[in-house]
């Protein structure tokens, strides 16, 4: 843990040129806000992906305090052709964390820029900087006694809305498709110019956070999952806290029940009877979060057996599939819709569990909190399932059709088992789609297991691509391979955009497979 790392340089940059650049950057942000020594950079090199740390080692880290400093740094880097990897809260765990996509990139850590610039309680909007965490926003709304909710992902205590939206992450309230509920960005371009998207470009406009489109092409999308600019502000919509919130869990006993679950719930989701992102979690997602110890059921190597999974279900009262959703409204509207939920659960053979019937301690509690946007870290229990700190999210998109889900689950489970890994998966029902999220958990302290995890992920990716299934998001270690599954024309257009906006290829080259 204390082994100093050798100095790392950006690709194609000499030590002396790099030092000159750092000297100029120190003059902009102050020497205390530039890290270039091996041990000090350790927090920027902690990854969970199945590749060596060295592959994602940074050369240095710079920590600007404001957008003017970001602009000044970009002018230096652009002139000196030094690649930079911007991060917000740096907690994209299992997708690359705070480490650069390519070895030697200089990390621009925007966590100090952590102002909540505006919350409009009437319009239910917020404008935040990259370093704002969900917990910080939650505390702000509580302190100001504002009855507003947001949607957050599972690492919400330490992660933040801007970075999550920029990576097109998802959450669990009716605003769970996060990018859909953003409104307006401020972006620093490679040459230091500042762009405000949508209505933000218009001098004197006060509609930046309420009207997303502006005039002409809507540009926000090209600054998500890309490397065309550095997002330094983002508008987001907040949800009025409903007078009545009714979270619930429906458990189903068999793996094959997934087909009828999805087909029964889809109409309710599309019609917004259930307005939030429904989660359908498999037993092995629930088990760790219910403090089940894997070794008690499967002490040996290899994937856990179906018989052991059955025993876990029985011993701990878990479903094969565990459906989490909620009603948001007035007591009257929720009472009416609750009858529909009860009818659907009964008709599909599910066991309906409510907050009052199942309190505290189990997976249910953190799920019920997440569905109202209350930050917690309950899902980090997943990491105790295998131990060893290895985690990579494999997240193919599926139609919200029962037949598709079972096919995807069986395909994934078979490939995972071949390499000795368990199917730890869930489906998050977006609206008409589902994010099929699988946590490839492995022991990263075991070199052999790490190799297997890499090979397993690679096979998952290729096998799913052959079936026409693409992932919605991917770790930096697999960016190039994932981009390749989407075909050549899209990549060519992405390169043309890169050439136009960042001709010196200095912003995160390689991110999402985009580079010159």
């Amino acid at each position: 843990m204390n082994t100093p790392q050798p100095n790392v340089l950006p690709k194609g940059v000499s030590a002396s040129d790099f030092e000159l650049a750092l000297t100029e950057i120190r003059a902009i942000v102050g020497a205390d806000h530039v890290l270039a020594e091996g041990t000090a950079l350790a927090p920027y090199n902690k990854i969970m992906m199945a590749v060596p740390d060295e592959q994602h080692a940074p050369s240095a880290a710079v920590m600007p305090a404001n957008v003017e400093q970001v602009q000044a740094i970009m002018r230096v880097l652009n002139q000196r052709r030094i690649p930079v990897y911007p991060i917000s809260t740096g907690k994209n765990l299992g997708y690359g964390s705070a480490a650069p996509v390519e070895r030697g990139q200089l990390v621009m850590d925007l966590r100090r820029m952590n102002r909540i610039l505006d919350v409009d309680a009437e319009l239910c909007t917020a404008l935040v900087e990259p370093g704002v965490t969900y917990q910080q926003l939650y505390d702000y709304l509580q302190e100001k006694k504002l009855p507003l909710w947001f949607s957050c992902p599972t690492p919400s205590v330490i992660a933040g809305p801007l970075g999550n939206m920029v990576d097109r992450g998802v959450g669990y309230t009716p605003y769970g498709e996060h990018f859909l509920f953003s409104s307006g960005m401020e972006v620093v371009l490679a040459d230091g110019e500042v762009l405000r998207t949508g209505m933000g470009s218009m001098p004197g406009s006060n509609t930046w956070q309420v009207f997303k489109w502006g005039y002409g092409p809507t540009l926000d999308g090209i600054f998500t999952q890309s490397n065309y600019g550095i997002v330094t502000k983002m508008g987001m919509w907040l949800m009025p806290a409903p007078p009545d919130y009714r979270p619930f869990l429906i458990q189903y006993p068999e793996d094959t029940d997934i087909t009828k679950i999805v087909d029964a719930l889809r109409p309710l989701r599309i019609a917004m009877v259930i307005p939030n992102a429904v989660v359908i979690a498999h037993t092995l997602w629930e088990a760790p979060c219910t403090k089940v110890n894997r070794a008690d059921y499967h002490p040996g190597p290899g994937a856990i057996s179906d018989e052991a999974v059955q025993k876990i279900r029985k011993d701990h009262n878990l479903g094969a599939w565990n459906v989490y959703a909620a009603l948001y409204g007035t007591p009257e509207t929720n009472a009416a819709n609750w009858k529909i939920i009860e009818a659907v659960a009964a008709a599909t053979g599910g066991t309906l569990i409510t907050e009052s019937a199942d309190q505290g301690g189990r997976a249910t509690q953190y799920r019920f909190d997440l569905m109202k946007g209350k930050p917690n870290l309950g899902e980090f229990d997943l990491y105790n399932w295998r131990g060893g700190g290895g985690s990579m999210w494999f997240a193919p998109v599926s139609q919200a059709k029962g037949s598709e889900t079972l096919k995807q689950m069986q395909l994934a489970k078979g490939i995972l088992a071949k390499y000795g890994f368990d199917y730890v998966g869930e489906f998050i029902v977006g609206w008409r789609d589902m994010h099929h999220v699988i946590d490839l958990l492995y022991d990263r302290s075991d070199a052999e297991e790490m190799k297997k995890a890499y090979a397993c992920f690679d096979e998952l990716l290729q096998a799913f691509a052959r079936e026409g299934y693409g992932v919605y998001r991917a770790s930096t270690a697999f960016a190039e391979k994932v981009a390749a599954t989407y075909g050549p024309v899209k990549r060519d257009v992405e390169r043309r955009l890169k050439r136009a906006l960042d001709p010196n290829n200095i912003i995160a080259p390689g991110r999402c497979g985009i580079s010159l």
Partner: protein
Amino acid sequence: MHSTARTILAGFVLVCTQAAVAADQPVEVRDPTYAKVCSYCHDKGIGPAIVGRQLPTVYIENVVRHGFRAMPSFRPTEIDNAALASVARWVSESAAAKK
């Protein structure tokens, strides 16, 4: 009809406000970094309990900066050096949690 709508809306806002102000934080006095970051795992059985074990401050600081297995690393922009020294000292000197 308008006045009815206003009454309903006023009730809606009142209920919302009441829901939003419900006490959320524990009253026990703790180091602020511990309360806002560490406790979410180390008091919940996700990470191991670390209070009451007289762990050396140097060890704690090292684990925070480097991470350890599934525990994420924390950068100076998240927990600055002064806050890190404070939380390390607090954890090291803390008594075991009351059962």
